[in-house]
């Protein structure tokens, strides 16, 4: 094990962290507006993965695959909002959380029934890794990381530079103040669920291209995404992204010592430590509980 192996792991972790940042961002956005940790987030990712896979099968184009994934993710999120979450949105956290578990199960079941449980791989051309001494980088990883960064930049541009983003942040900050200021909550909600769905869908497509798509893939992404969002401070979009990238690199660097199976556990342990030391997350100010 020399330094190059560690650099390789770190690069891989960086890409994984970027991919993980997308569902973590979706989770934290929904938490900010709807005030519950959405356990169906992972399954939106899986739906997006299959959407991207189907689009890629039909057209062979990677761009259309990304669009297909985004569309499928958005459809999954909006459908879930209209049919399941909206009717109970004013009820308790537990109602919303159990509903989100239910939504996740329904999507996973639908994916299993429609596509079967065999993992599916994107039909991608094999590429030689670029080598710099002992450090090697896959060209596909670079383009997927670039795509992910582009999506993140787009989401943050919407959040911080548009009127829509301003109203989203206002609702997240203080729902009552936002309402009396004349911000239409329903419209913002729709925009936010769409955005979360698009982000998840692209995450599904990207992680599907790096590995495989299968119905349970989303569930396996859920705990790391939770961990990343909690580490960054639930409801804090920037924190979620930084948390995910930190976690991605840390997980990969720890793999040689802990073994592959405990990868998920590392995120969990870091989350628990953060909850003990700084429960509001690394990047949040102390807030009043509402």
């Amino acid at each position: 094990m020399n330094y190059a192996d560690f650099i390789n792991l770190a690069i891989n972790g960086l890409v994984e962290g970027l991919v993980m940042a997308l569902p973590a961002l979706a989770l934290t956005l929904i938490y900010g507006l709807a005030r519950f940790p959405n356990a169906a987030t992972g399954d939106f990712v899986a739906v997006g993965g299959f959407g991207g896979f189907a689009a890629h099968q039909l057209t062979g184009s990677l761009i259309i695959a990304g669009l297909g994934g985004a569309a499928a993710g958005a459809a999954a999120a909006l459908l879930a909002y209209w049919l399941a979450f909206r009717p109970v949105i004013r009820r308790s956290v537990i109602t919303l959380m159990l509903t989100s578990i239910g939504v996740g199960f329904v999507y996973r079941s639908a994916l299993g029934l429609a596509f079967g449980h065999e993992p599916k791989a994107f039909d991608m051309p094999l590429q030689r890794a670029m080598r710099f001494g002992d450090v090697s980088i896959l060209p596909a990883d670079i383009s997927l990381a670039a795509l992910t960064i582009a999506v993140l930049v787009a989401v943050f541009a919407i959040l911080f530079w548009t009127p829509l983003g301003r109203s989203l942040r206002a609702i997240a900050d203080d729902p009552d103040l936002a309402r009396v200021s004349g911000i239409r909550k329903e419209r913002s909600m729709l925009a936010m669920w769409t955005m979360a769905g698009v982000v998840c869908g692209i995450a599904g497509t990207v992680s599907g291209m790096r590995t495989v798509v299968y119905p349970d893939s989303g569930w396996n992404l859920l705990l790391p995404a939770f961990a990343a969002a909690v580490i960054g401070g639930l409801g804090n979009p920037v924190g979620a992204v930084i948390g995910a990238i930190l976690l991605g690199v840390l997980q990969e660097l720890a793999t040689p010592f802990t073994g592959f199976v405990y990868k998920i556990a590392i995120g969990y342990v870091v989350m628990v430590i953060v909850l003990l030391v700084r429960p509001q997350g690394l990047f949040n100010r102390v807030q009043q509980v509402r």
Partner: protein
Amino acid sequence: MDTYLLTIAVIVGIYVLLSLSLDLQYGFTGLINFGLAGFFAVGAYTSALLTMRAGLSPLLSFPAAAILAALLAWPIGRVALRLRDDYLAIVTLGFSEIVRLVLVQEQWLTEGVRGIAGVPRLGAGWGNPRFSEFFLLGMLVLCIVLVILFLRRLTASPYGRTIQAIRDDETAVRVLGKEPAVFKTQILMLGGAIAGLAGAFYAHYMTYIVPDLFVPLVTFYIWMAIIMGGVARLSGAIVGAVILVFFTEGVRFLRGVIPGVSDAHMGSLQLGIVGLVLILFMRWRPQGVFGSRGAT
């Protein structure tokens, strides 16, 4: 046929214990435990390993299973219970997944995915296997009766009123000078102990345990059971467990009747039904099948 009925009775009994555990935590105290399967697994593996590797009598291994599951609940309570309710859900869900990872990975102890075979039956030395199955059922029923009696006393006591007050208005309890996190941690441990006990019964009845028996779906089966049976009523736990077994057995029956359906498809269908039940009940009947409105 009566072997089948016996199996059903034992499974109902184990689900009743799990439902009582979750009902104590969620129904009476308002704790969102999404990691019940983890405590269940710890109980099952603890008792199996203690009887097989250390040669302990089940008389000691069952309490040990309950105690270890309770002890594991303590740090979880320390971490999560001073925070908002939903953090407990995330932390417990993670806990149950980590338990499963440990069971898969630490093969020197748990045999990994191959699982532990040949867990001794209760009272195996005294007679034929039939006897030991009835003996286990008898002990299980006895245990359920004791747990129900205990919980009835507990929930009617001043302590019980405190935990229900925490569920209804945590701030009010704090104002009265009681620290809710302390009570919540105790309830989390007590519920963990009951789930661990259920796990011990499960291990010694099945005699073969693998990590896959303790997936998060099991946790949400029990959530489904207590929501359908009605939360915060001990009878609801029993009703819910019975409905749950009707459901799981019904699905198995259907798989036998409908030709050309694969196990994977049936598994997906089962998952989807659990999901739909959770969504529909939370929306339309959060008080359960037989509950009256306004109870929740």
